[in-house]
């Protein structure tokens, strides 16, 4: 009886582990575990610079999840990501600084709405032209955003950058100390990241995601099946815009500083790289991709003098990885993991 109960429980555990969300939750638990270790060891390990590194990986991963709709599902490459992230960040900075009475949630929603509204306008412009020209038009768009960030002094404080002094909610509303607020915001960030992974996963498996995939493989065939190209391309664009705007809000709230130089084309290229490396549609892959592109430098390489003095080495490596992934390994990390699994299974079969 006892045995049967055990096997039932382990069966339930197994099926829970096989659930698509298990990996997402695992990532969340690991990230929170890092923060808890830091609290328990009183900041000895991991250092706060390392935690900040992971926080920025999460922020970029959020932007990356939005980008998977464009690149992974709709097959469109956009270089306007940086602009929308910057927009979210600057709206947050402006509102928190100049309108102290407005609640954070309202600021967040406002940033999302503005991003969506602009995204819709841009989406309509972009969608009138062929897919591969989208990257070109959005490149022009990101230049517009950059010029705005650099020159609209009242809104962005220009090249000097905008900053906020306190962590929203935890420091302003709950009156926590700066250190505690940072830790609390880190945990909020983990929750948001994992939640968005689940949301993105479900959207991808829904009819919306399937329609986008059909469009990616053959736009003509998709149209013939009654999929509205305009609707789903625009939807992909809007979703990626909303995620980028949210990423911007989180960027400003956690890192509390942003300057126009943050939002150049390199930012957009890095996001593209992160999503590509991860395998375009795999969310854990996107997280790992963000970790490789944005996380390795602040988390590990910062302590190695060679990389501190030659920061270009890592960027060149990322450029090389983009080329190699596109040319030889289009599945990215996901494909790598699957290949390793398959070879293990093969070895297993040979042994038995």
């Amino acid at each position, binding site marked *: 009886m006892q045995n049967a109960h055990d096997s039932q429980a382990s069966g339930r555990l197994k099926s829970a582990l096989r659930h698509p969300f298990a990996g997402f939750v695992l990532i969340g638990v690991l990230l929170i575990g890092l923060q808890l270790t830091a609290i328990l060891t009183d900041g000895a390990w991991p250092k706060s610079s390392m935690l900040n590194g992971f926080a920025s990986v999460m922020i970029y991963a959020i932007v990356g999840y939005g980008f998977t709709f464009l690149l992974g599902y709709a097959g469109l490459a956009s270089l306007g990501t940086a602009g929308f992230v910057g927009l979210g960040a600057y709206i947050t900075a402006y509102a928190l600084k100049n309108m102290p009475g407005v609640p954070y949630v309202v600021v967040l929603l406002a940033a999302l709405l503005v991003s969506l509204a602009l995204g819709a306008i841009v989406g309509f412009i972009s969608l009138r032209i062929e897919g591969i020209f989208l990257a070109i*038009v959005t490149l022009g768009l990101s230049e517009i955003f950059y010029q705005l960030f650099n020159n609209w002094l009242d809104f962005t404080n220009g090249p000097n950058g905008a900053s906020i002094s306190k962590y929203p909610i935890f420091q302003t509303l709950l009156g926590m100390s700066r250190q505690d607020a940072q830790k609390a915001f880190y945990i909020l960030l983990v929750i948001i990241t994992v939640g968005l992974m689940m949301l993105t996963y479900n959207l991808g498996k829904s009819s919306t995601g399937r329609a986008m995939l059909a469009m990616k493989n053959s736009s003509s065939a998709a149209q013939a099946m009654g999929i509205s190209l305009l609707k789903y391309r625009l939807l992909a664009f809007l979703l990626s815009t909303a995620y980028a705007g949210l990423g911007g809000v989180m960027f400003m709230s956690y890192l509390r500083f942003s300057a126009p130089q943050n939002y150049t084309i390199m930012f957009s290229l890095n996001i593209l790289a992160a999503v590509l490396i991860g395998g375009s549609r795999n969310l854990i892959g996107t997280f790992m991709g963000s970790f490789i592109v944005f996380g390795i430098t602040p988390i590990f390489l910062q302590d190695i003098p060679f990389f501190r003095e030659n920061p270009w080495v890592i960027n060149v490596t990322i450029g090389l990885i983009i080329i190699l992934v596109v040319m030889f390994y289009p599945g990215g990390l996901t494909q790598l993991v699957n290949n390793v699994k398959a070879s293990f299974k093969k070895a297993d079969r040979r042994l038995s």
Partner: protein
Amino acid sequence: MSIPEILQTIINSLPMIGRYTLVTMGIVLIFRTTATTNFAQGLIATVGTFAVTWASLLWTDLPLWVCLLMGIAVSFLLGMFVDVALIRRARHITPSGKQMITMGVMMILVNVTPVIFRDITLWTRPGKSFSTGILSFPLLGHTMNITEMGLLGFGLAAVVLAAVFAALKFTKWGLGVRATAANESVAQMLGVNTRVITAFSWALAGGLAALGGFFTGAGTALNVTLMGNAQVFGFLACVLGGFGSFPAPILGAVIIPLIYNFAGNPNLMGPNAGMWQNLITFVAVLLLILIFPNGLLGKKYIKKV
């Protein structure tokens, strides 16, 4: 704005028209022969420009035009290398995949160039340009001014582009390019060596862009974003004119500098015009693209299934 002012603004646009048409021609050549939108075009030109300055300031006492030829050769070889090493091997990949490959190349070059040319980053070429003079000449009864270097750039661009167009029209290579542009596999079957054609197109694109880069870099501090605007505007010129033919993007590359210079005119756009010049140009061009999504001279693109 008075008439002489309008004329002067148009004259002021000529150097930029020269530079942008060169870069744009390269982008179209590459797009038509290999279906690749080359995001590394600006940086291939930048490497050549750095090479010119490095050669003329640190390496040799040879006259500047020899150094210029060396710089063009550097970009020529770099363009050829990108095609032979990467794009040729990526023929089976989708256009957006190839686009991402060039973005990867861009990312590498943007980081490697300042390291290779560490000594001359942010240098200008003092006393090492062909001329620093300003030329005055009468036009329709008004006196116009243009820098001699700018006029030289425009004139050289016009001559070089005329030569490229003549080559496209009359030489065997040009016929090969047009055949490859129409249909690569059919061209191959008919005996066109498309490998040579594409490699040479990429190389020529690099060389043309380096010439444009040389004139962009004359008199300004060198840095790796030197050709950023030329790259973006070159692309937009192609979309604005229409990617479908060789001359249409050149029209785009003529229109954009005109918009840019009028947008930067303080009498027309107010005292802060210089600050918002880029922004206004981008917005105007994007609006034009919205009105003409297939390009000013383009035909509706119909994809066969």
